């Protein structure tokens, strides 16, 4: 059975890019443009991993993360952001991996594989 990934990202072009790239790896990818929509998908679908942006309208990444941890403590979360700054206090947030966006999408793919135990 295919593993499912939820990508929460406000920039449309990045949603297209990352979902296509992850689908290429054989995953089913759901996307959401903000935290609220993302949480709804987590409730409705069987999600195995979340890729989460930080700076988003409505509900930002950190608030979303705290809600996810409240609902499904064991759901792996990768923070995928353009900001390198938050990395220093990322450990206290409870996400599994903090990854700074770069032109090398393979980094993301590898971390996804690692967390899904493949």
């Amino acid at each position, binding site marked *: 059975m295919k593993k499912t990934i939820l990508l929460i990202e406000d920039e449309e072009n990045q949603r297209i890019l990352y979902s296509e790239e992850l689908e290429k790896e054989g995953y089913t990818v759901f996307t959401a443009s903000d935290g609220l929509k993302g949480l709804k998908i987590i409730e409705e679908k069987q999600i195995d991993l979340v890729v989460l942006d930080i700076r988003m309208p409505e509900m930002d990444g950190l608030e979303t993360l705290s809600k996810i941890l409240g609902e499904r403590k064991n759901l792996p979360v990768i923070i995928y952001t*353009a900001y390198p700054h938050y990395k220093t206090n990322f450990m206290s947030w409870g996400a599994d991996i903090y990854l700074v966006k770069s032109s090398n999408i393979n980094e993301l793919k590898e971390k996804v594989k690692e967390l899904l135990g493949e």
Partner: protein
Amino acid sequence: MVKKEIELDDLNYQLYLLHTICKTLQRTLDVDKIIHVILTGLTAGGALSFSRAAIFFFEKEENCLKNGTGIGPYDSTEAGEIWAELGKTGMSLEDLFENGHRIQLGKQIFPQKIKKIILKLDQIPQNNPINIVLKEGRVYILKSEEKHLLPSELLEVFQYGSEIIFAPLFIKEEVSGLVIVDNAFHYRQIEKTTIDFLSLIIIQAGLALGNAFAYQETKKNLEKMEELNETLKKIQEEMSKQEQLVAIGRFSTYLAHEIRNPLVTIAGFTKQILGTNDLAKIYRNCTIINDEVERLEARLKNLMRFSFIPKPQKEEFLVYQVANELKQLMEISFQTRGITFEQEIPEDFKIYGDKVLLREVFFNLINNSLDFVEKGGWIKIKGFEEQGYCCVEVCDNGCGISKENLEKIFTPFFTTKSQGVGLGLSVVKIIVEKTHNGKVEVFSELGKGTTVKISIPKKGEE
């Protein structure tokens, strides 16, 4: 008859001495010099002619007399030496007052011994002459037969005189010290007029020392204030450095989000093109890349806008018209957010300035208000003249700005908006203050709303 003439001569000399002392004391605020003048005056030959003179200061907290200064020989041998040396210098009384503290006569035994003396008053009996002088504030003449009353350290230095006079030193109506003089080595009896003169000189000394101490205190306070000022300056410099760091931090945050995101997207889609032959996909990716490049360009323009404000092209323009243009331009935003936009600008109200730049100012202010006003709220733009200025106010009944944030709103890259860049108000400040020599003021109350007031000098007063 001859005796009378001598007495008159003495009196004349004493008056001359007093006059010279007063004159010298009036010219100085230097405590050491004042003490030197007093002690020299008391011991100068031909006038009061005391052999030695010493002054001690009363330390209230320690209840003791200390910080003594003395002038004069320790014993008769030194007395002979000093008087001979003094004769050789040929110094006048004025010279002695002005420069005497720079020459050291004899072996300085007496001054050194005086310097070391500390008289603890609670160790001296209450009825001792010293305590009587300090308590009652009067002169005490100690005769030879009473010398046993002296504390041992004083007795050691004043053992030779047949009379020792203790006089209180008053500074600002308080007994603040003790002057001791004696007639050692010549043993002439001390006359009543001499004691009166002594008292007069000590009164002058008290006045001069009072002024000098007040001056010292003021000087010390001034130095302390200067020190504080220096510290404050350092703190301010440190703070402005911190602020700059914070601004740089904000700038890098801005770069991270606004520049890195499109770059990453462009890189991703470019790599997809390189790995596919699917023309439709290549076309779609190129379109996305083009969009992202345009976004990047717009952001860069925004940044440039901040660093480069063109030279203003000033003209008189109707503010009413500009506000109308903005109203039309922003109508959709007002409608979708359910916000009322009102104008209170007289139709003939004009501003002398760069119309394009000031339109940007008004736009930024209204745009800011839009983000803080809730549905059903209002934004008003007002125009009026005030003391040589043409003023435009943009007011709203939005959530207001906290006191803490109010200080930061003009700092580049400061923003509380999730999507804001934090340059809008910085640009407003630069356009109004730098290019129009005007003023920007912000009045805000949390929960009630905000008013930003722009004042541009009237034509001819800019």
